[in-house]
């Protein structure tokens, strides 16, 4: 391998190949990061990912504890096991970070995202879109004579699947919130 051809998971900021040769597999992890809800905190967390060359596949953030001024950042990231461990260690040592939960490691979890789909169509395609929306339990939240806006909640895979089906039926725009996740049970 040429030293310049650094694969996913290695640090882009080092000329060295930092990967553990025994752990080439790229894993996807969902992390819940509990942070102070103060200005600049999200920038600090995202800056860590860009500065160290980590991947962000999805990111959501909102305040979850008003009295405690705490926000929850749900970030889906990918990398070798060593990189994932390093991401968590780097997050945990930040002054603004209270806790980091690796939901992927901590056991079964529920992942959901909300998506809005604008589908343009008439005649048969329009009816087919409506029929598929029913199957996917998507709601119609806006309608004109030649378009629908569907609202759907589900796993990222379900959102992907619906988007794929809508494509030939006149899908013109998608808005997705990114993943919110929580562990199952207590």
């Amino acid at each position: 391998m040429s030293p310049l051809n650094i694969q996913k998971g290695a640090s882009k900021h080092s000329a060295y190949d930092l990967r553990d040769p025994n752990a080439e597999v790229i894993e996807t992890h969902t992390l819940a990061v509990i942070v102070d809800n103060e200005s600049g905190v999200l920038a600090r967390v995202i800056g860590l990912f860009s500065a160290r060359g980590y991947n962000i596949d999805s990111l959501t953030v909102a305040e979850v504890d008003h009295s405690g001024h705490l926000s929850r950042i749900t970030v889906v990231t990918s990398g070798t096991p060593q990189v994932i461990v390093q991401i968590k260690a780097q997050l945990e040592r930040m002054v603004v970070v209270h806790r980091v939960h690796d939901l992927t490691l901590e056991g079964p979890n529920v992942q959901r995202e909300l998506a809005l789909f604008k589908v343009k169509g008439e005649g048969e395609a329009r009816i087919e879109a409506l029929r598929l929306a029913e199957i996917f339990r998507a709601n119609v939240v806006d309608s004109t004579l030649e378009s629908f806006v569907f609202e759907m909640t589900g796993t990222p895979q379900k959102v992907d699947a619906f988007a794929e089906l809508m494509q030939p039926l006149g899908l013109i725009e998608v808005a997705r919130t990114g993943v919110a996740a929580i562990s199952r049970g207590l």
Partner: protein
Amino acid sequence: MTRQMTGAKMVIEALKDQGVEVVFGYPGGAVLPIYDEMFQQNDIKHILVRHEQGAIHAAEGYARSTGKPGVVLVTSGPGATNTVTGIVDALMDSIPIVVLTGQVPTFMIGSDAFQEGDTVGITRPCTKMNWLVKETDKLAGTIHEAFHVATSGRPGPVLVDIPKDVQFATGTYTEKADARTGHYKPRTKGDPEMIARMVELIETAERPVFYTGGGVINSGDRATELLRDWAEATGFPVTSTLMGLGCYPASGKAWLGMLGMHGTYQANWAMHDCDLMLNIGARFDDRITGRINAFSPGSTKVHIDIDPSSLNKVIHTHVPIVGDIAEVLEEALALWKSRGSKVNREAVATWWKQIDEWRAVDCLAYKPGVNAIRPQHAVARLEALTKGMDRYITTEVGQHQMWAAQYLGFEGPNRWMTSGGLGTMGYGVPASIGVQIAHPDALVINVAGEASWLMNMQEMGTAIQYRAPVKQFILNNERLGMVRQWQELLHGERYSSSWSEALPDFVKLADAFGCKGIRCDNEADLDDAIREMLAYDGPVIFDCIVEKHENCFPMIPSGNAHNQMLLGDAETQGVIGAKGAVLV
């Protein structure tokens, strides 16, 4: 009973409550209220630098030589951005620094006002934490929190950005005891199970080595004492990174010298061949490891570090211990003693025989100078003529820095201030002044190269103003020596922009600044010239004209392993392959 005062007054009160004695800074429009308060008190001494970069490096020198946080006060915009290099430097080398910056008034933020810069945005990636304070009531508490964060856990730089209207307005002072600090409490106590495993490994190791780093010095004097006790009790060899020099005495019998790219033959071979590596407060930096997959292939690795993200970042560690070095060593040493202070003495004696063979290579030997002074000789003479003095050394960055690390011996911690992680040329002059301000009667020498020295030479004005008798020992080869060395080894001897054609006359420069200038260009006069420098009661610029094309050895070429060291010029042909050439 609450105290009401202006924000500007709060800054001074908070600094006093934090025990701050010295602030390095430079005034400007957005910090005038704070400077006005500074003027009206005598508890805190303000050192006026000549450039804000000088302020932060001086604060770094102050912090590293005292173990206390360094404090910087600068104005908004350019004042703040000029500190950025030093902030990154302090982050890389884990130096506790509190930077206070002025900012345009809150109602003008975002309007591209005069001298406005997004200071918290610019410094976010290079501070441990930073704050923009928008209410005077929160100012004192934030400053107290800033000191707590800078000095707790792995130390580092923090920044508090204070808009001018917040400085003028009156608010309630938050006492130090009431400040919010509880949320940031890094773990300092090591995992007992891991400590027990480390002790077991120490009892049976056949070829052990202590690989120590700046973390030992940051942990404090107790850590240094415990390391020395343990090295003595076990008889294990000790090496150290550039940052850790002084945590074990250079005169100690277990001392192998510095390790790494320009480390000693014995230290690097011991690292390569050991069966137990005890990493205490070092971070497997790329200057240390060389080629990762050939780094100490047969050893079991123990790593003690207060920063969990340092563990397993670069090198897989078998026994990772998160904790404060002093606390972990205290517990480990007690456990080891309670189990009978066992060591595999026979195997360790054999190991020492091997190490002595490596030592016999005498890797730091250099040829005597013929026409010019050998730079190694200049540093070796400086060492000989200052032996036994309580001496503080700062450096710039480059060949001279490595020669200083190789040929100067450090007996105690906090005596060696150098830009390790970031490699900041221009660090040494201001750092030496910061050290001298902290230790007014001590001997402080900046070992410099002429190119680095010029980068912050304006700070000689600061040295004169505050009567800081810093000795600037410049190894002048009229080259950017380390760049030149790499061009020789890697780029076909094409010396692209690595020499200076228009250097100043350093003796005249000294005269212009109002200090003493000495020039020496031959070995016969060197000792007398150094004595003259040491004897002079005031700042000295010493222009030591040295051999122009001397290379720094030993050297582990980029992309090579510890057992592939070069000892001298004869071995340098074609040693760095295409793979190594892309590394820095």
